[in-house]
């Protein structure tokens, strides 16, 4: 039986989820027992939900043997456990960002989700309009990235707002082809997952053919730097992290069957993002 213990949004904890998937990926018509103990970052429900979905795709049953009560409570509030036979709980504190499973074609639905969870959310702290817009647009960019590049069947999202820490954490996950495979198909060259991610986050690097692009992840990285936040990307066995202190990369022992992008934003950021714009619209072209 697998127990996922003390899951935070760290490289070793992404690895725990990848390891769990790897142990059971060949199971068919089986019961797959799982326990969650000590701690579970709510946004990590997105990568966990993605791998559980894949395992259920092989007609296995996920059996939650034990979930610590504090973890159970948060995963019932954010709707994750509703997908596995548990009742939904009301989030009285308004700190959850709901777990969602969507098709890549559900763009309209994702827009409504983002608007409800971030833009028009009265429980969120008093952020400047500029910061709120930047955060929302970052999430929309991530969804569109997954939609365009991943060839996934579904996109999974989840997050959490931590009022005391003044942070919002959000993860978006696909079960698609991954960064290295996108690179290989576009350039006919094999590359490690870590290098594929490192290449993709650079400005103007795109795997799209005959259309300019490659700004989305670069913009996100710049925003994370300004906001003193955090960006993590996991794709196959590649792990990449970026914050103000720079980049960190690792190779996971077992591959994650898709890609994860997690972002941490600071809600007490007083920078006036509305001023980081252009004054002269006449010479844009």
């Amino acid at each position, binding site marked *: 039986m697998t127990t996922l213990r003390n899951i935070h949004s760290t490289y070793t904890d992404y690895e725990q989820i990848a390891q769990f998937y790897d142990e059971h990926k060949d199971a068919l018509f089986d019961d797959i027992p799982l326990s969650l103990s000590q701690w579970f970052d709510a946004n990590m429900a997105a990568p966990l939900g993605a791998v559980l979905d894949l395992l259920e795709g092989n007609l296995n049953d996920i059996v939650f043997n034990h979930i610590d009560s504090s973890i159970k409570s948060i995963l019932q509030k954010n709707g994750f456990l509703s997908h596995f036979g548990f009742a939904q709980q009301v989030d009285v504190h308004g700190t959850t960002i709901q777990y969602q499973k969507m098709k890549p074609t559900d763009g309209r639905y994702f827009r409504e989700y983002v608007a409800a969870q971030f833009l028009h959310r009265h429980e969120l702290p008093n952020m400047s309009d500029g910061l709120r817009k*930047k955060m929302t647009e970052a999430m*929309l960019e991530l969804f569109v990235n997954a939609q365009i590049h991943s060839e996934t069947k579904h996109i999974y999202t989840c997050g959490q707002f931590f009022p005391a820490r003044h942070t919002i954490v959000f993860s978006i996950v696909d079960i698609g082809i991954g960064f290295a495979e996108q690179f290989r198909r576009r350039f006919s060259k094999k590359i490690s997952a870590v290098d594929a991610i490192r290449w993709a986050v650079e400005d103007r690097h795109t795997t799209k053919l005959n259309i300019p692009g490659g700004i989305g992840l670069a913009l996100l990285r710049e925003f994370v730097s300004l906001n003193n936040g955090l960006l993590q990307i996991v794709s196959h066995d590649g792990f990449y992290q970026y914050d103000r202190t720079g980049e960190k990369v690792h190779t996971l022992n077992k591959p994650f069957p898709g890609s994860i992008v997690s972002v941490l934003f600071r809600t007490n950021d007083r920078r006036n993002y509305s001023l980081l714009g252009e004054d002269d619209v006449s010479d844009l072209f």
Partner: protein
Amino acid sequence: MTPTTISVFNLVGNSFCVEANDGDSVFAAISKALHQDQAVELSFQNVEMLTSAFLNTAIGQLYGIFSEEKIRALVKVADMDKVDQALLRRVIETAKSYYQDPARLDASVKQIMGEDA
């Protein structure tokens, strides 16, 4: 020549202009005007959210078909806030570089592969 106004909000049908596919209708409308040497004013009135993916499709692609001079002469932007203008400038600069210097991407691939650029 009086420019034709193109309402991005109306073409997309939503205040969130985010998906690449939604940019296609805007791209088609601008292209149609430019092929006729007709000036256009692209209005972003009531547009709340934009992504680079949308703008790449809607505007970035123009640089693969029309000259920079023609686009500059015939396309104007209106009703767009400063932050969105900064994003659009980034998209336009990226598009110019993409079409003018296709070898740049190949060089970046060689670099990450550890090959001689």
